[in-house]
């Protein structure tokens, strides 16, 4: 898969979420994009009970409709040192999490979901979706993938130009923090990178909600 950049598009004060999405769809349509189906990224969070000893550990389990056969699990370990261990598994991993439900319990109220429409324009894939947490609207996410390129550092300028063409000044001139923090600018882009960007955004939405 190509380099993907995920941006949170702020909802203007006098507009609702769906209105914002419609506006973006109109803009991308004007560029010549063609609609091609729907997409969905969901995230469920499990955390360990008190019997495990030590601080609680959290497992985020994410699914991405772009990789329908895969399950992405990210384990936040308190450490020391604190770290995140990613795991890519096939669909039956969900069954295993059910088996472990006595050890790792799901926090249903923090289930997050980004759902919306996919667009294609030349080699770009654009997804515009709304984020909901247990069916409450949280914000608008825009995912832009440039499929022929696999090194974020190579095509950031190009993607910035593309994104600014329909998102305007929301797009920063520097690469998103995810690429700088994890030093991923010069590595081959993986589906897991997309998932981690989603998780980062979901986490910040949760923080806003005060959870």
């Amino acid at each position: 898969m190509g380099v993907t950049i995920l941006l949170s598009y702020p909802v203007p004060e006098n507009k609702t979420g769906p209105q914002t999405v419609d506006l973006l769809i109109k803009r991308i349509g004007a560029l010549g994009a063609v609609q091609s189906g729907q997409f969905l990224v969901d995230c469920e969070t499990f955390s360990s009970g008190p019997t495990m000893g030590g601080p609680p550990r959290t497992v985020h389990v994410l699914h991405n409709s772009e990789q329908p056969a895969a399950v992405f699990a990210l384990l936040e370990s308190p450490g020391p040192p604190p770290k995140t261990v990613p795991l890519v598994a096939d669909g039956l991993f969900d069954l295993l999490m059910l088996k472990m439900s006595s050890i790792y319990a799901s926090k249903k109220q923090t289930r997050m979901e980004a759902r919306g429409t996919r667009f294609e324009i030349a080699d770009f894939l654009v997804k515009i979706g709304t984020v909901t947490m247990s069916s409450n609207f949280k914000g608008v996410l825009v995912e832009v993938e440039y499929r022929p390129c696999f090194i974020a550092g190579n095509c950031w300028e190009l993607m910035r130009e593309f994104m600014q063409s329909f998102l305007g000044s929301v797009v920063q001139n520097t690469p998103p923090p995810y690429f700088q923090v994890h030093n991923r600018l010069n590595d081959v882009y993986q589906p897991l990178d997309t998932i981690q960007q989603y998780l980062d955004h979901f986490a910040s939405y949760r923080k806003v909600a005060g959870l």
Partner: protein
Amino acid sequence: MNVELDALNEALKAVSSLRSCVGNFFLSLSQGVRSEHGEDHRETKYILELQDLVAEISSNMRKVEQTCSSIPLPPDGQINLGNTAHLAHETTQDRQALYSELVGSYKWTDKLHEISNITFGFLAQNVMKRSYNSYLNSSGMNAKRRRLTPSCHNVPISSVETVITAIDRQYQDMNMNVYRPHPSNCHNLQIQVSLGRILRAVISFRGMMIEWVKVKAYNEEFQTDNGQLGQLDLWTNSRHHVFRKITENANAAMLHFYSPTLPDLAVRSFMTWLHSFRSLFTDTCRRCGNHLLCAMPPTWRDFRTLEAFHEDCKP
């Protein structure tokens, strides 16, 4: 029949010389007395000239009569004139419908002429001839010249490999793997080029001559699924628009750089050109200064300067 035709020709010649004599006579008559008749006795000289002309007319007249009488008349009293006989039947041009057809054929020949002129101009500018034989034929079978230039598709495979290894060593970020799809065929060679982490290309050689180029993304495979080792997939297009465009341009470049006399130089120049795509996603267009035009990066590289242009911006 032949005798008949000769007699006819004779008669026609006699008629035309008679006509020209009559024409001369009237010409002199209309011009009247001229300066060449001198100052003295101008009228006499003029009259003498006219008399000469009239005499010529009468002798020609006699000749016509003679030839006409010598034409043997066919038994039915008519000479078979073939199709030309019909010319006299319909004299109105509208009814013959000749005019529109004549205009059509005139236009057609005119256009043909024009197009072949343009084509000739193009062909003279760009030598597109891929086979050395036709090149030889057009430039005349020059024995000395043939000796100078071995036909490049017939180069032994080992020397092609040496050239490729040399090119491979020249560029740090361009790797080449050589495959021989048909071990029995000593001229066919395929190389797979990976340029940085940007693109992959497969280039098919016949001897030292590049036959086919296909460019794909860094993660697209050329190995075919049916497990035959050393067989590369030369035909499947890339999933991405960008690389399909570059494939097109690469084939154009391959033709542009082709040179029958210096085959290894052609390969070298092509590789240098291909190498310029290492900055495919970072280059901006020379003309418009942007990364993107119609959501596509600059996919054209100038053959000489290797400057990047968008498809629609290229000079």
